């Protein structure tokens, strides 16, 4: 009595989550790139593209509820469906952070960059890698990777604190305050994305072990 049709549906849902994650990761990449290159058009694309992410979240959520209602899943199937519901919420909020970065990119376009911006590409790179790795851990059902990704959150926090100090220092020159404030928001958005990665990793651990762990 194998439940092939049900497991096919589950696999489709997994694919949709991966699809959503690739959109979100790309949005973060584009938003930071738009900021650094003062590319208003690219920033606008990120803002417009958020709707796709939101729609995908709705679709996955509805399908997940449908599967739960029809298939009465148990054990690891049930945990996976719950994990999918939790993970897509985190992904959707990550996309909102990308939009926030893109809006700041538009605000800052046309202004000469202050020095502190040079740390942003490094921070964005780390955060994007975390997003990729978290989804990879979900696909691989890998608890070890999930824990390891959470441990890496310290690097992002460290960069964030460093940028925070530098931007604060730059504000001694009153002319820098508007731009430094925008950049602070950007750094904060990226830091929040990394926190949400931790949440996804916790969800993956729950999916595999059935244990609710609080990391970081």
């Amino acid at each position, binding site marked *: *009595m*194998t*439940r092939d049709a*049900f*497991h096919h549906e589950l696999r*489709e*849902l997994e*694919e*949709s989550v*991966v*699809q959503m*994650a*690739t*959109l979100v*990761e*790309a*949005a973060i*990449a*584009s938003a*930071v*790139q738009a900021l*650094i290159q003062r590319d208003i058009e*690219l920033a606008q*694309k*990120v803002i*417009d*593209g958020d*709707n*796709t992410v939101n*729609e*995908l979240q709705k*679709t996955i959520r509805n399908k997940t509820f449908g599967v739960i209602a029809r298939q*009465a*899943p*148990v*054990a*690891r*199937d*049930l*945990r996976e469906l719950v994990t999918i519901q939790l993970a897509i919420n985190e992904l959707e909020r990550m996309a909102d952070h990308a939009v926030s970065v893109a809006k700041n990119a538009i605000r800052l376009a046309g202004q000469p960059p202050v020095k502190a911006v040079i740390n942003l*590409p490094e921070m*964005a*790179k780390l955060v994007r890698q975390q997003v*990729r790795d978290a*989804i*990879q851990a979900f*696909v*691989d*059902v*890998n*608890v070890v990777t999930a824990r390891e990704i959470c441990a890496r959150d310290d690097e992002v926090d460290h960069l964030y604190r460093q940028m925070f100090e530098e931007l604060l220092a730059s504000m001694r020159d009153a002319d820098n305050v508007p731009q430094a404030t925008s950049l602070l928001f950007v750094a904060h958005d990226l830091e929040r994305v990394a926190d949400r990665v931790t949440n996804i990793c916790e969800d993956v651990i729950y999916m*595999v*072990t*059935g*244990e609710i762990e609080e990391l970081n």
Partner: protein
Amino acid sequence: MSEVSLPGATPGSLDAAIREADASKALVSPWLPTRAGKVPGDAEAPQRPLDQGRVKMRSNGLHVSYGTTRAIKGVNLDVLTNEITALIGPSGCGKSTFLRALNRMHDLTPTARIEGVVLLDDQNIYSPGIDLVRLRQRVGMVFQRPNPFPKSIFENVAYGLQVQGNNNPRELAEIVERSLRGAALWDEVKDRLHTSALGLSGGQQQRLCIARVLAVAPEVILMDEPCSALDPIATLKIEQLMEELKRDYTIVIVTHNMQQAARVSQRTGFFLSGELVEIGPTATIFSRPTDKRTEDYITGRFG
């Protein structure tokens, strides 16, 4: 910073409508996670030590063989007082064989051989000198197909008492009514107690069989797929009845219907190839079982 490319076709199951409507706006990076083979979970739940005072029946190293076929291989299982214990597993796993060993039904099968111990309270039911009639009165059985005698409803329920020598009409009437009420059948049959039991519906017949068991005041009720011949409404009635019965009795149910096990039982045991793979609180078995074989069975990956 890597170049961000605009959408390429990515495999997957996005709703086509969304994909087409929003492809122009979507920013898809070249990155896609690879899909390695899934590895099993490493969940390990320690077995909960049992509260000895609550054990109603216990099998210790129970083996059951039919001729040269070993149907049950060394099962240790505790049935707790005033709980419903569900036994699940694929066809031929030994769950019904195990159930029948709990009131020595195998005594009727000449080729059957039993080793090990089955305790009812502190007494081994396989000890020499055990009174089988008394045992089966203490440990009653409800079968897959309702099997009323071709007699009246009243006579069906009173039969066990009469076999015991009780012929007091007033006492019989009292016990019949109490048993039929206990089996949630009284209101439906009180005006036709002396008509044939064979005129009842399947669900009513099964509740009559439960009333017949209740009449002899059992301590444990064994149920061997009691709902498999019933429609969903009748099934629901039996399940509700079980919930009420467990206040006064201890119930062990064998069921093919995993959702039924999940709905009605407090503890679930999973049998496979004559072995008890795992037993634990039902919520645990259906949310995070310890053994991968249990998980694969209940999630429909084999069976």
